[in-house]
């Protein structure tokens, strides 16, 4: 009897293992990638560094030498309100580096998504770390988007010249800060306007974002360039500018599928 049961067990073992495996692979959702592109603009014009004259809502003007910002903690939202938070997503968008104007988020569960959100900047937990080995990729401090005298990443850097004042004056916005009362971490949720982003295993949809540089100043808390003295550190001024760009800088231009 004993022998028989053992034999039976041995015969059944591979079957059990096989069905176990099959069950596991069945439970794995198929995933795909989403490709993001960013087009920086000044109002209706494509942003050309050291060239484009940007005009704010009140008619003040500036030109741009540097325009860089982090997009992180990317979440995709389904129509039922459920979200997929893509892990470890930190992307530095730099208008001077064309390769930085598109990036891919892999491992997104297949399905139809109706919205997106992301932090413009870096979350407090990450930027507050003190081990430089944790700042991999775009977060590397050598990218010059980090305050060495006040530990933390610069979330958005806009440098240029205010041209609507006489004389012209330098424009410097270094926005950051992750502790109260000057926490400048903001989340943008540009609308899909009813469109769907369909993720499948075998093709990669593209989400085309537009970022309007004038919205750093135009927004719920407008800033007048005539009296603007710059933002260089975590401060109330930084928070004000962050609230502006969170509200209106990003929009979804279109969603395409290759």
């Amino acid at each position: 009897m004993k022998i028989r049961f053992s034999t039976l067990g041995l015969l059944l073992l591979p079957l059990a293992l096989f069905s176990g495996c099959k069950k596991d692979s069945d439970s794995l959702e198929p995933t795909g990638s989403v490709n993001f592109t960013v087009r920086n603009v000044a109002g209706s014009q494509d942003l050309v560094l050291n060239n484009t004259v940007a005009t704010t809502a009140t008619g003040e003007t500036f030109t741009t030498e540097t325009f860089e910002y982090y997009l992180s903690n990317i979440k995709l939202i389904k129509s039922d309100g459920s979200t997929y938070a893509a892990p470890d997503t930190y992307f530095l968008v730099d208008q001077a580096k064309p390769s930085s104007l598109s990036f891919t988020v892999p491992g997104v569960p297949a399905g139809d998504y109706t919205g997106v959100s992301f932090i413009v900047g870096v979350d407090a937990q990450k930027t507050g770390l003190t081990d430089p080995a944790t700042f991999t990729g775009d977060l590397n401090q050598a990218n010059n988007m980090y305050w060495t005298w006040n530990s933390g990443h610069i979330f958005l850097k806009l440098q240029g010249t205010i041209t609507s004042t006489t004389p012209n004056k330098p424009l410097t916005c270094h926005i950051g800060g992750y502790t109260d009362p000057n926490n400048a971490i903001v989340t943008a949720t540009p609308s899909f306007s009813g469109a769907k982003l369909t993720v499948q295993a075998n093709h990669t949809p593209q989400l085309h974002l537009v970022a309007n540089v004038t919205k750093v100043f135009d927004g719920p808390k407008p800033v007048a360039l005539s009296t603007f003295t710059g933002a260089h550190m975590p401060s109330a001024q930084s928070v004000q500018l962050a609230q502006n760009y969170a509200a209106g800088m990003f929009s979804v231009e279109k969603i395409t599928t290759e």
Partner: protein
Amino acid sequence: MRRACSASRKSLPNKLTTVAAPRRTPWRGWLAGILLLGTLGAAGSAAVAHLRRPNAAFVAPANFPALVYDVAKNQPYEATFELGRQLFYDPRLSSDGTISCGSCHQQSRAFTDGQALALGVAGRRSARNTPALQNLGWHRSFMADGGVRGLELQALAPLTSPQEMNEPLADALAKLNADPEYRRRFAAIYGPGKIDTPQFLKALAQFTSALVSADSRYDKHVRHEPGGTLTAPEQRGLALFQQKCSGCHATDLFTDESFRNNGLDRTFPVDSGRAHISQLPADAGRFRVPSLRNVARTAPYMHDGRFATLPEVLAHYDHGVRPSRTLDPLLRQPDGRLGLPLTAQEQQELLAFLNTLTDNSLLTNPRFAPPPAAARNQLPLAGVGR
């Protein structure tokens, strides 16, 4: 990189972990181990540089609080320490090749420079006095305003400050990567590939974190060790210190690491101290309480170096304290008088005590001195990573 590093650690010989240490002072075992390694290294044995330092590294001196720095994420190795030392003393890391960390942080002055305000590239003056470098592994924050939150991040501040070394991090890394000797030394520790930010900062931190001061006559006194005898005036100074000064200069680190306004000024138009970081009015004029270890060697004093001598400092606390909204409460006496009343004799006794905090084991240890020019060529090609 991290994987390669941890894999290599397993194969390392570990002979020196058994260095005996007296029970009362476990940190001495660590120090002895370092000295032993240093001696053997100087003898030119390539094998020795592969060895880990004793695992007892950074066991707190018996009279210290617990270590803050996470040594486990920057495991001490002799080769890495020596690389950090080389970086610390290399002026090429400044924008014009004239200023190294060691330019302002001079060993004989407890790693200060004797200047009121630090002197950077092209004769530029920093806004602040160079702080002493000692016991950095016990710091929770760095800089007089606490703006930097970790030891490994700290070096970035003077490196990139336009008034100090004026070198963007990317440029410093490019210089290191263009130097075959540095590439060889980094690769020996971290494996092949470009020298990157964490490698650079961690190597430097192995040197700066090793600058431990815990062997002054005062230390020997509190640990009941030979050589720890204090004279009667010194003992009276110690008692006075505990009564009047230890509210801020607390523990045997001689700082509670808080930010306080010690009454230097009524207003703070030039340097608001902690408020520069926090943007809080309540922090205006508050600066980090500095350690008083080796204080006899770190003149001039205060965040802006305004006092040339220790008697001037004591005179300030006796009768120079100025009122402001953020003046530290400990400097307001119950009768409304400002400061800490100190008789001439009390000031003499305090001075006598402060002199017992001088620690030659930090100030004269050849391991912390600029590396001999020849040392670069003596280093073995293979290091702990092989």
